[in-house]
């Protein structure tokens, strides 16, 4: 016999451990649902910027046009300075663009001369002169020596007073030359190309790049980008802050000491540029909120809107619709089958071998892996039954619903059976004693009394159908596609959409609110259904105990 004290202690430790297991489970639940719900709710509740309101107005026709226009005017006012700063800087560095501009002026001037019917001799002379100016400027643009640039520009500017060039498009040469000289004086010319690349990156972050949207959206007057998502800036303040951070800071791999591995360092992006452009960074940082006007937004239309550009904008309307369609069609099959099976098992069951086989069938069905249901749905419904009935053998809502109906049949049967069994025998006996037939007794007495319990089963089956993904992978779910018109079309669903967005491309990772929004909608839908089932069951239980 061990010491009583030790035994008591051990007992207490054991009790604490068992309690801890439940605490751990609760923590796991909170760790899974907490961040999911928090981040998912930001799909609906967030700080929307003026870009969001522009997008809503243009794509969905929502919002007050006048207020929006006023807001746009206000923000554009502040944005103009950004455009000017960048343009001014580019005058000094963007060599190719400048050369192109000069060539354009040259062509334009030639056209002008031809239009004016200038005599051939003078035409040749002036063409000769402007070609010289053009070549001089191009050398200046490509030069890395400030003295050479000054010399070349000075030679060009000598022609500024040429009466033949006055009042023609050739005057643009001189304006350009002066701007360039001024800009070139402020930067390190040996870094031309570096600056050009850096300013291009900045433009990508501020306006938009070929594939990613920027902070402020495209500049006014720019031809609309082919991708809708590139036509708007940061629509959400959280997105804007990420972009702002990328705009202000740059991550670089640097070697601090020779021989040591490279380390990732964060340094201000402004340091990549000469003094002349540095004010831009301070300006954007200070005025970002005034240029974007973040405002608290409730985007409940997330639940009805279709998505745009693979979920970059918009909501999950078609996914919700698809899930509902599949669920409703599936329930049409599973409710009658389940209730009749349960009724038969309770009312007509003798304990013979047929019953044992049926029970085993139900248990086995409950244990079949969900992906095998997918294989079955594909092999039986899609590839066998549909062609046999004359339908097109392709995945569709009907096939998915029927597959899910088979999958959830055991849930429905078990819940209904339990409900029917728990109806007190006195009800039934009373009815039978009054002379009602067994069928009539079931329809008029047992079934109504069992209805709340059966409803619990219905709700549980509903939530099971809505949440399953694997069985519909091959039988009716698609990640992108039109909204279904009939049950013979495949559909998007919340469950498959959640999978698709979780493992999706870079674009999906850029919109975590939509990723989480999708999965949270699914989880909340299912938890609400299950909560309803639990409440219903408790009430039924209380009622039946009360009798």
């Amino acid at each position, binding site marked *: 016999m061990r010491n009583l004290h030790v035994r008591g202690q051990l007992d207490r430790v054991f009790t604490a451990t068992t309690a801890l297991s439940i605490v751990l489970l609760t923590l796991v639940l909170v760790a*899974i649902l907490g961040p999911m719900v928090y981040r998912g709710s930001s799909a609906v509740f967030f700080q929307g910027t003026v870009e969001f309101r522009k997008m809503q107005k243009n794509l969905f026709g929502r919002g007050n046009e006048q207020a929006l226009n006023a807001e746009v005017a206000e923000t554009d006012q502040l944005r103009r300075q950004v455009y000017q700063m960048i343009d001014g800087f580019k005058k000094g560095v963007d060599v190719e663009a400048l050369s192109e501009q000069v060539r354009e002026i040259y062509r334009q001037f030639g056209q002008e001369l031809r239009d004016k019917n200038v005599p051939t001799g003078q035409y040749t002379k002036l063409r000769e002169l402007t070609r010289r100016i053009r070549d001089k400027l191009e050398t200046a643009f490509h030069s890395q020596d400030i003295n050479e640039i000054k010399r070349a520009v000075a030679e060009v500017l000598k022609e500024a007073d040429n009466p033949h060039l006055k009042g023609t498009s050739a005057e643009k040469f001189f304006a350009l030359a002066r701007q360039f000289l001024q800009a070139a004086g402020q930067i390190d010319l040996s870094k031309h190309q570096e600056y050009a690349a850096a300013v291009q990156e900045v433009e990508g972050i501020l306006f938009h790049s070929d594939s990613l949207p920027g902070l402020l959206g495209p500049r006014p007057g720019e031809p609309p980008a082919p991708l809708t998502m590139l036509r708007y800036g940061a629509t959400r303040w959280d997105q804007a802050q990420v972009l702002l951070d990328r705009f202000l800071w740059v991550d670089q791999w640097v070697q601090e000491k020779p021989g040591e591995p490279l380390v990732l360092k964060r340094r201000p992006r402004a340091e990549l540029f000469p003094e002349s452009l540095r004010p831009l960074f301070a300006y954007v940082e200070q005025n970002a909120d005034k240029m974007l006007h973040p405002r608290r937004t409730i985007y409940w239309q997330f639940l009805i809107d279709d998505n745009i550009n693979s979920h970059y904008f918009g909501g999950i309307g078609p996914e919700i619709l698809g899930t509902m369609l599949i669920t409703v069609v599936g329930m049409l099959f599973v409710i009658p089958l389940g209730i009749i099976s349960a009724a038969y098992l309770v009312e007509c069951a003798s304990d013979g071998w047929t019953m044992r086989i049926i029970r085993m069938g139900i248990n086995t069905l409950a244990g079949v892996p969900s992906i095998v249901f997918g294989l079955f749905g594909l092999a039986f419904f899609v590839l066998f039954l549909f062609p046999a009935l004359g339908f097109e053998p392709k995945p569709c809502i009907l096939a998915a619903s029927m597959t899910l109906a088979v999958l959830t049949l055991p849930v429905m049967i078990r819940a209904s059976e339990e409900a029917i069994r728990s109806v007190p025998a006195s009800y039934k006996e009373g009815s039978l004693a009054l002379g009602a037939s067994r069928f009539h007794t079931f329809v008029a007495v047992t079934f109504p009394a069992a209805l709340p319990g059966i409803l619990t089963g219905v709700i549980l089956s509903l939530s099971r159908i809505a949440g399953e993904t694997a069985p519909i992978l091959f039988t009716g779910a698609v990640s992108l596609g039109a909204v279904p018109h009939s049950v013979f079309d495949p559909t998007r669903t919340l469950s498959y959409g959640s999978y698709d967005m979780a493992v999706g491309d870079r674009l999906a990772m850029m919109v975590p609110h939509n990723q989480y929004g999708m999965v949270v909608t699914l989880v909340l839908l299912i938890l609400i259904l299950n909560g309803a089932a639990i409440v219903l069951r408790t009430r039924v239980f209380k009622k039946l105990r009360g009798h």
Partner: protein
Amino acid sequence: MNDSNAAFTLAPAADSPRPLALTPGQDLRGYLSALLGRAVLFFITFSSVLAVLLILVFVVIRSVGFLSGSSIVEFLASQNWRPTAEPPVFGALAIIVGSLYVSFAALVFAVPLGILAAVFLSDIVSWKVRNVVKPIVEILAAIPSVAYGFFAVLVLAPWLQKQFGFSTGTNALNASLILAIMALPTIISVAEDSISALGRELREASYSCGATRLETIVRVVIPAAHSGIIAAVVLGMMRAIGETMVVWMASGNAPQIPHPWWDLAQSVRTLTATIAGEMGEAPETSLHRGALFAMGVLLLLMTLGMNLVSEYFLARAKKAGGRT
């Protein structure tokens, strides 16, 4: 027989269409329609069994082409899974091992926790507290698997990678942790049912001998409920081995046997994930598709086997519960 029955038959009430007590001779139509109704109901009820048979038949039929055309030995013994190579190699050993590997790893996490929680619910807390705690387990069971997979990929994987310095966060550890969470509700509810079904007498006898609660549970209750607990573990295993979305998203999908065997940080691939991932790319009537259906057959056989085992133990647990 007929005569004696007739003697007790009451005269039909005025508004009743037919007599209440029936023999075929007295009311052939009524008797037949009742029989027919019963047959229809029976057939509808039988649809569950029919579904199981259809599943078996159709999944097997689709795999016959593969199983007859290439060697089953290669399928079960080779580790080379190269379905798109020329000529293709279908060796599923690494994938089968992967399925078993993550499921067993999940059980290692889930079984102790599940039994503790079951004991907590059945023996330690009051009925009222139990009714508050039980929904937690039910919510864990209700969360759809794709949401667990979502959590595994986007939350758990980066966290594991950062915290433990793994080369990838989607690995056997990630998958088995999530599978453990998913198997827990099954294990808890089945184990709790069998533990609480034992009745008070057994426990009271133990307490009256002077045993503490710990001693009662470990020496008396759990041994007495061992059938039900084994059934719970088998059912949990079934849940884990048949799960698709989580392992597809979280296991890394590398068809390899972890080496060394205890290294959970390596990526593995499971049968379910292979079917889910490759079915879309496998052309109809190809060997590849046949091989995937053969995997389905394998899964089906495994779960059918486990189902039989669990039913055996559940039946034993019922008997044991009834005896005490």
